């Protein structure tokens, strides 16, 4: 390792790492698509104190926040295939468990994880909307659904946006742990490229840069969206 950095490798591997971006983004988007509605609904159960669901959601959030993501990955990756396998066998579906694309496990882990984070985000955001808003909406004849869609959600979203941004950035960062499920994303692709010549320093510099660009773009996009949403912000007192 005494020779200088291999700049050609550094340059080439940057594009290898870049080729992992679609997988990373795909997992992120699917996880968010599942987690946003699920997190919102579960947040409603917390706010309205629905007997059993409320308690379950509480334990769920506590578990996800209390355990490292990597261990959640380990657990899903070592339990779901077992369950699937017995399911396939019971229904005599001719499918080998080893042929399941690891991206499915990634969807499960990351939506499981992000839902819990978003429950707390939505719960605190919904808590900031005064109760009178819902009552006012009801009194002018809106249904519960209309009131939420037109009145409550836009206001809660303004408050929730910065936290959703943080959750998204954390999600993108967490997908780097997909290597434990042999998910072909940024980190794993560059690492595999480095294996041949032990060019790990270069590979990790590339990975580092790719994540930096990705996260900066996501943060920028959220900033723009927040500005647009700001029109729903109640006039500051």
């Amino acid at each position, binding site marked *: 390792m005494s020779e200088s950095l291999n700049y050609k490798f550094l340059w080439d591997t940057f594009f290898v790492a870049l080729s992992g971006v679609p997988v990373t983004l795909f997992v992120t988007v699917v996880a968010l698509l599942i987690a946003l509605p699920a997190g919102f609904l579960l947040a409603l159960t917390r706010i309205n104190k629905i007997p059993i669901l409320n308690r379950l959601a509480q334990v769920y959030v506590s578990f996800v*926040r209390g355990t490292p993501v990597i261990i959640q990955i*380990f657990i899903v990756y070592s339990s779901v295939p077992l369950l699937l396998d017995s399911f396939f066998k019971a229904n005599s579906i001719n499918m080998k468990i080893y042929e399941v694309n690891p991206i499915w496990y990634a969807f499960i882990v990351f939506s499981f994880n992000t839902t819990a984070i978003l429950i707390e985000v939505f719960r605190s955001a919904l808590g900031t909307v005064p109760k009178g808003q819902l009552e006012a909406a009801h009194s002018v004849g809106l249904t519960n659904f209309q009131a939420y869609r037109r009145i409550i959600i836009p206001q809660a979203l303004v408050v929730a946006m910065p936290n959703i941004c943080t959750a998204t950035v954390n999600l993108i960062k967490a997908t780097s742990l997909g290597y434990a499920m042999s998910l072909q994303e940024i980190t794993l692709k560059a690492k595999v490229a480095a294996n041949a010549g032990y060019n790990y320093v270069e590979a*990790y*510099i590339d990975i*580092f840069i790719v994540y930096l660009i990705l996260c900066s773009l996501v943060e920028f996009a959220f900033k723009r969206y927040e500005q647009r949403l700001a029109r729903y912000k109640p006039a500051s007192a």
Partner: protein
Amino acid sequence: MEKYFDASYIWGAFPQLLPFLKVTFLVAGAAVLFGTIFGLLLAVAKIGKSLIAKKLANGYTTVLRCTPSIVLLFLVYYGIPYVGNKVGINLNDINRAIFVIIAFSLQFAAIMSEVIRSAYQSIDKGQFEAGVSVGLSPFQTLRRIVFPQMFVVALPNFGNGLIALLQEGALAYTIGLIDVVGKAELIIASNYNSHALEIFLALAVIYWVLSILIERFFLMLEKRFSRGKRTLETA
């Protein structure tokens, strides 16, 4: 093949895993110590007057926030010996725990700099001015008036940062540190990769209990220290 899932493995794993919490705590403790010191310096730079220092400190925080822990860990693990080699120091044989501590100190510093900065800015400027006006020196004012109030504000965020650090620290096994997770991997390997699920569940329980304990502890501290705050507000 025997049963797929055997709950007795979960109980069996605890006595084997728990002694290795020592390593986890040691690494986390060192990272908290160094991270807080470095974070304090960064916060001073962010609050201070020098524009360059402010830009640098903010840039550092942004970059670190965008870097996955595992990437930072490997960057440190491969990068530092490489740089050491360049300047003629052989760092290849140094203990892996050192790399883990460096990586997580860097990360924790970014968190702490924000915690300290926001705590400092939450304290009314009048507090400092009042302290100086009754004849305290600026240092005395900071120590006696501003810090105690900052401490209460920073406490919950510090607790959250600590839990986050502990969880990210679970990745230390990837560079071969034998902490709880590393030990779990060893146990699984010695079982010929069977009953991995049970060992991971035991691991999850350990982390879960730890996080809840830390959370409770900080809630308790918060209650204790905000007693003084309340009397100040009513006064």
